[in-house]
């Protein structure tokens, strides 16, 4: 039961983007279409799950005074690996995401989970926490990406839905990110109020 809670809390109740509101910089920047949003979510999921597992694994041998530098080394190692692999095997996505792949290093979701959860819990719980948080991040980012792409470019995952001429270009420009994220947060809050 506890394990399930570790996994599920990141999805809605403590959703990193819509609830904790951390790691918003890449969310705002790469959610201009659904494909980029999905690619970014997968990269973040890889780094978050791996770093959570490794931090939990070595927490007993990590001296408290230098835990933050050690976390940063672990996180940046996985980010750089992800960067190389993406550049080699998904060059188009790599170009679209640009600087936001290396910037996963400073994504506060990852350091936040390492410090707040993985450092204090065994590996299985840390893995589930990472997976749940990643899923929450993915759901939030992809839903923002889908809304912005449909309204701003008239397509979804690159498949055209209607004529681009009637699409509201503002939705794929930076203001569209703020508008969409605000509306989704409001919707989520309202839904939760009704359920409870």
């Amino acid at each position: 039961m506890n394990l399930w809670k570790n996994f599920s809390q990141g999805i809605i109740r403590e959703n990193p983007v819509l609830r904790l509101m951390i790691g918003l910089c890449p969310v705002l920047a790469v959610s201009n279409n659904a494909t980029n949003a999905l690619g970014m979510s997968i990269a973040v999921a890889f780094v978050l799950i791996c770093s959570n597992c490794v931090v939990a694994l070595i927490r007993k041998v990590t001296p408290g005074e230098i835990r933050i530098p050690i976390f940063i080394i672990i996180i940046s190692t996985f980010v750089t690996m992800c960067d190389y692999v993406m550049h080699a095997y998904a060059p188009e996505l790599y170009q679209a995401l640009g600087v936001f792949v290396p910037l996963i290093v400073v994504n506060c979701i990852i350091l936040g989970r390492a410090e707040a959860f993985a450092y204090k819990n065994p590996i299985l719980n840390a893995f589930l926490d990472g997976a749940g948080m990643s899923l929450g991040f993915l759901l939030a980012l992809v839903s923002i990406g889908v809304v912005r792409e449909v309204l701003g470019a008239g397509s979804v995952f690159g498949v055209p839905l209607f004529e681009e001429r009637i699409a509201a270009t503002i939705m794929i420009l930076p203001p569209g990110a703020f508008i969409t994220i605000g509306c989704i947060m409001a919707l989520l809050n309202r839904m939760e109020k009704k359920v409870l």
Partner: protein
Amino acid sequence: MGRIIKLGITLGIFCVLSAGLLAWVFLMTTPVIEANAKASFEGSLREVLPGAKTFKDVSVKGAKSQIYEGYADGKPVGLAVKVAPRGYAGEIEMLVGVDPELRVKGMKILSQRETPGLGTNMLKPKFIAQFIGKGVKDVLEPKKDIDALTGATISTRGVCEGVKAVLKDAEQYGKGKP
């Protein structure tokens, strides 16, 4: 004092492990990255200069643009020139194919950082098609012989400047040859 040394050693071990792992991944992926970049650039060369089978780098050292001469069955069939004019947000890297009569044969935007939804419309075939067949004598100005992109006149001007530069380079290259 002993504590500091112990911490330093712990941190050092983590750094060494991390560096080793990264070196391995780097060695595994570099050949793939280089092969991809090469294949994709060669593909672009063929795209802008249809008919050419092999390309030779004939760029002048220190020049702003890179020139590739295309050959089919040993005969030159035109040039592909890479230029990077200024757009609205940074440089627009583009490749333009020019036939021996100094007319644009094909054009491809390699990379750009223009405004999404406005300047990025330069990637559309309809916009690119306007430049095909243009030569040194054409004015190549937005609102004259080129339809500017809505809300992105500066981006349009950038592309026009790029094509002009390519045609100029191609003309000079032609003159330089005996």
